[in-house]
């Protein structure tokens, strides 16, 4: 069945509209969510104050880490959409509910993943607030070229993270019910509080193909605080696009083979 991009987009837009209405209806929930994220940020902040008060982290100080926290909140909260969406996909594969989506004229995982969009709203809000705070307190190096590079880095990084999530979720076609995804994902997630430049190159390489914290958090922060020339951002963007193409191809192949194997027996 040919996929109509306009229909795809309508599904996404409609889903986000409904979720926004839900947030407006359950305001207390949203307030608690934001409060929880603020506490999470304070934990991050005290942690780094304690670390930097006792040891040196080359290339990083508190202003830089504030910018990193801004990007961390924005991108990792968006990542939660994938995590919960992919968890749902796994459940649908093993319970046989995937049928309901296979019959629709959109890519089956799109409506499932975007229905968790409300997880991102509070994180994006706090992340933007932290970036504004960093900009007003310390001044940031921002120009249209850097802004565009950062935007593209985040889009490509999100694409890589989603492909990785879809690859692991698709394994449910063969493995059935398992928590492998959660354990791997939350394990890698431990790296999200730290700038990736402090880790050895091999770890950065592994992260580049799974959850690319370098593209999503570290590099945008480095570019905004002016610790690296703009060309570094472009080089990483090029490498990211290549990784995304490879990851997308693998994810597509595994998904298609999985759907062929799928029997909806639950």
């Amino acid at each position, binding site marked *: 069945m040919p996929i109509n991009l306009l229909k795809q987009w309508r599904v996404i837009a409609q889903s986000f509209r409904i979720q926004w209405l839900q947030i407006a209806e359950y305001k207390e929930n949203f307030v*608690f969510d934001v409060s929880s994220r603020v506490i*999470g940020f304070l934990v991050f902040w*005290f942690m780094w104050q304690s670390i930097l008060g006792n040891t040196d982290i080359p290339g990083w100080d508190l202003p830089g880490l504030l910018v990193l926290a801004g990007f961390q909140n924005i991108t990792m909260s968006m990542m939660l959409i994938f995590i919960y969406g992919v968890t749902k996909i796994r459940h649908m594969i093993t319970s046989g509910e995937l049928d309901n989506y296979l019959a629709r004229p959109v890519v089956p995982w799109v409506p499932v993943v975007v229905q968790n969009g409300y997880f991102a709203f509070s994180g994006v809000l706090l992340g933007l607030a932290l970036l504004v705070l960093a900009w007003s307190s310390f001044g940031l190096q921002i120009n249209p070229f850097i802004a565009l590079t950062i935007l593209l880095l985040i889009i490509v990084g999100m694409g890589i993270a989603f492909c990785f999530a879809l690859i692991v979720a698709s394994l449910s076609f063969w493995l059935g019910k398992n928590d492998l995804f959660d354990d791997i994902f939350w*394990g890698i997630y*431990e790296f999200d509080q*730290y700038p990736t430049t*402090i*880790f050895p190159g091999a770890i950065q390489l592994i992260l580049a193909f799974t959850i690319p914290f370098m593209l999503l958090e570290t590099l945008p922060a480095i570019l905004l605080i002016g610790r690296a020339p703009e060309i570094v951002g472009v080089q990483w963007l090029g490498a990211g696009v290549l990784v995304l193409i490879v990851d997308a191809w693998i994810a597509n192949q595994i998904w298609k083979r999985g759907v062929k194997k799928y029997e909806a027996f639950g």
Partner: protein
Amino acid sequence: MKHSASLAKYLQAFRLTLLEGTAFRLSFLLSFLHVPLLLFIYWTIWSPGFAARGEIQGYAFPIFITGLMTSVVLRNLTFTTGQGEKVEEHIQHGSLLVYLTRPISFFFHQMAEALARIVLKAAVGVPALLLLHIALLGKLPTLENSILAAILVVVGGVVFYELTFIMSIASFWIGESWGLRNLIGNLGWLFGGAIVPVTFFPESLRLFSAWLPFEYGLYTPSELLLGRAGFQEFVFALGVLGVWAIILFVCQKPIWEAGLRKHDGKG
């Protein structure tokens, strides 16, 4: 007789959760995947500082890193966030009604399940702790301090369960309560000494931490295992945790009853 019959019901829930857990051994094993990852992260961050200064705030590197990792493992053992998710699900989906019609206390039933999960996790967590101590310090904790630490961990586990339960029954009013549970989880990380030792905090934060249960359920047991705390610290920590356990138990009852009055059970 009535009490023993009542206790048997919860023991049965405890036993069933243990059986269910042993059927998913790999899952419990993998839930400790983040321990070696965090060891690697903490090692990367702190080793240059210790190499340059020798000691930081009275800690030598092996003791420092073992202490952090011990708190990480203990936090993993004692935080029953998964049980909180179940409580939220029962409220949201209406399956709570099934429990309400039975002659059991939902609070104690969930606590029995949570304690069973702690025991299951201990099957991985305790060997992991012993391995950490042997690998990083070259010796095991003393038996006496291990027993004192174990007592604090169990009482701490009860307190953290009570906190998680109260946060989860907020679902009666706000629907999803994962944000509140995350909040408790974050506080546990910070004040349990799983990120930096609490003695590294500024004075104001140190004072704040002294009023919370996390330090006594995670950091003090870790210090006991390292041999940096003794019986006096144990008694004080047990006292604070005991007070918290009583306060939370008393508080959960009216909150639960108010929630039930609001609950329509339609899911």
